[in-house]
């Protein structure tokens, strides 16, 4: 079976007033039906990766190198009709702010049906019944009535459910979720996370879930890729990352989560701030903030070390840690 996703050496640079090397040589692969969390802070390149996957990068201001294949389709070569078919049918996206992503002047049923009609070429009645079915599947109570609601008549959690229904209506093979629970309340966030988990099982699609919250990543994903300064610095199963994060940045993030930290104790905070990425990093981008930094870290980019299976770390210390065990 073909891989669901195969990203090779993806490099994205934005030019304009300032040049930003947003993504630098990112490689990533996913099997069918896998759930991957892209974990990182603002500016780490996680959202840009999603945009590249959907072919949403502004063509005039960005230059993209490398390759992206989804189910064997070369995404970067798509354009026009083919790109439109690919978006929605093959890959679709759930955004952080459903209030902004849904059209305020159409009912939610109309919006879902419209997308189904466009991609599947079915009649309006069939599309509406699909829409109703989708609202049921995302556990919206009295879906029949909600079909005729406008987005503003729904609560934040309900809107996000509608957004998910819209994204899944055409049965994409890959769902991209860009911090879909960040704007929600805690008690609503957990509902949406569990819903996405169930729907993933039900539909069998692959999910890339972008988040800055390790706890959310644990709840949703089987695998985690940690991004920093436009690179993947570590990847592994969620268990491996949580129990045995090897990259000093991953370890810092875990410590900063404050789970089980003694009250009032001094936090082991990562000093400083991420680099601005105006030039392409030619050394470990984390070196200026790292407490284990060695001269070699500043001399060249650390190689990506694959330890066992699909576990990999971009750190010169990765081997040392492995050896010590």
């Amino acid at each position, binding site marked *: 079976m073909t891989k669901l996703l195969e990203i090779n050496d993806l490099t994205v640079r934005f030019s304009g007033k300032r040049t930003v090397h947003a993504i630098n040589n990112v490689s990533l692969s996913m099997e069918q039906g896998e759930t991957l969390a892209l974990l990182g802070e603002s500016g780490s390149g996680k959202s840009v990766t999603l945009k590249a996957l959907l072919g949403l990068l502004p063509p005039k201001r960005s230059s993209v190198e490398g390759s992206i294949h989804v189910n064997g389709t070369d995404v970067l070569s798509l354009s026009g009709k083919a790109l439109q078919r690919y978006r929605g049918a093959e890959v679709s996206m759930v955004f952080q702010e459903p209030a902004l992503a849904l059209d305020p002047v159409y009912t939610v049923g109309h919006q879902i049906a419209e997308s189904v009609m466009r991609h599947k070429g079915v009649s309006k009645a069939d599309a509406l019944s699909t829409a109703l079915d989708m609202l049921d599947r995302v556990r919206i109570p009295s879906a029949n009535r909600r079909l005729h609601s406008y987005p503003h008549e729904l609560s934040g959690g309900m809107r996000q459910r509608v957004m998910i229904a819209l994204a899944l209506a055409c049965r994409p093979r890959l769902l991209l979720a860009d911090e879909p629970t960040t704007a929600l*309340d805690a008690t609503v966030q957990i509902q949406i996370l569990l819903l996405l988990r169930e729907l993933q099982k039900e539909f069998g699609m692959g999910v890339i879930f972008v988040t800055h919250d390790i*706890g959310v990543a644990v709840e949703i994903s089987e695998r985690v890729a940690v991004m920093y300064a436009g690179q993947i610095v570590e990847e592994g199963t969620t268990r491996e990352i949580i129990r045995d994060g090897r990259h000093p940045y991953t370890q*810092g993030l875990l410590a900063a989560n404050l*789970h089980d930290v003694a*009250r009032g104790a001094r936090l082991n905070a990562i000093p400083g701030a991420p680099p601005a990425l105006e030039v392409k990093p030619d050394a470990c981008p984390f070196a200026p903030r790292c407490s284990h930094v060695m001269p070699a870290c500043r001399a060249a980019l650390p190689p990506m070390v694959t330890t066992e299976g699909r576990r990999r770390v971009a750190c010169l210390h990765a081997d040392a840690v492995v050896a010590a065990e």
Partner: protein
Amino acid sequence: MSVTETYAPSADTGGPGQPLLIVRDLQKHFPVSGGLLGRTQAKVQAVDRVSFSVKKGETLGIVGESGCGKSTTAKLLIGLTEKDRGEIIFDGHALGERLSLKDLRRGVQMVFQDSYATLNPRLTILDSVAFGAQVQGLADPKCLARKMMDRVGLDPNRFAHRYPHELSGGQRQRVNIARALAMSPRLVVLDEAVSALDKSVEAQVLNLLGDLRAEFGLTYIFISHDLNVVRFISDRILVMYLGEVVEVAPVDSIWAEQAHPYTRSLFSAMPSMDPDDRTKEPPLVGDPPNPINPPKGCRFHTRCRFAAEACKTKVPKLAGLSGNADHLVACHLHDAASGHPKAGQGVPA
């Protein structure tokens, strides 16, 4: 001369035994106007019957979801929103009687969530930090501002003449903290002050807040939706739901036992950090109700698993748990005389 020596808070009046801040029966309803003539059609009951006190040197954490009234409470405390009813007593002096609004604002300062929106884009960092000290007529505000910038970790030589947009989120939040502290307040209200920051920067700012609290003897009211953060920094936690206080307790006590069903749901909604023990079932269904027309009786009864007839009609009173008087809860399950079938038994497991 160090910053500690120039820090000049207003004098302590009641001694360490007197709470720094007492809030009694605070209420704020916002009118919702509409229609042709702009008449008031409904009222958002943002804050209702809120009472609590903060001891000197203590940090009180306030948690709750959007619409629970935690930010409105913060704005009421500092007089940015006018209260409908209730008393605010700062170190023994009631606001509006022996304490003017200007004096209150000298003693209580606030740090907001959005570090960018809270800074005037046309003022340099130095001017922003010095503004409050200037207004309050403190001696040499610019020099004071530089010292405070230095103290929060912003080199004044590098940052004094920059504009807010040239700084990172973490640096801007340091500016906001410096601005609040430049007025030598005794109480600082931190309204989601670290929520918008990246995790690694959040940890730095939390460390800074801890240091400043120790150095200047500050008292904090720390508002956040992140229970882990609140637990880390607070001594006591106050939980709000739809404008009301449902539970107040020392951190360890509430972490050991969440006495209110809502608090319990809020705690179990925290994402698990254990990949082998992920959350199996969401603790609550649906979104929080609209504060425009909150449910009668106990406002949580529409989502509560243990709701009985009494909960729909009777408003529960905030009272100490039997055996732990410091742990206050507003729930009929804990009140033997409430009329709830399981009254006095506490929340079932």
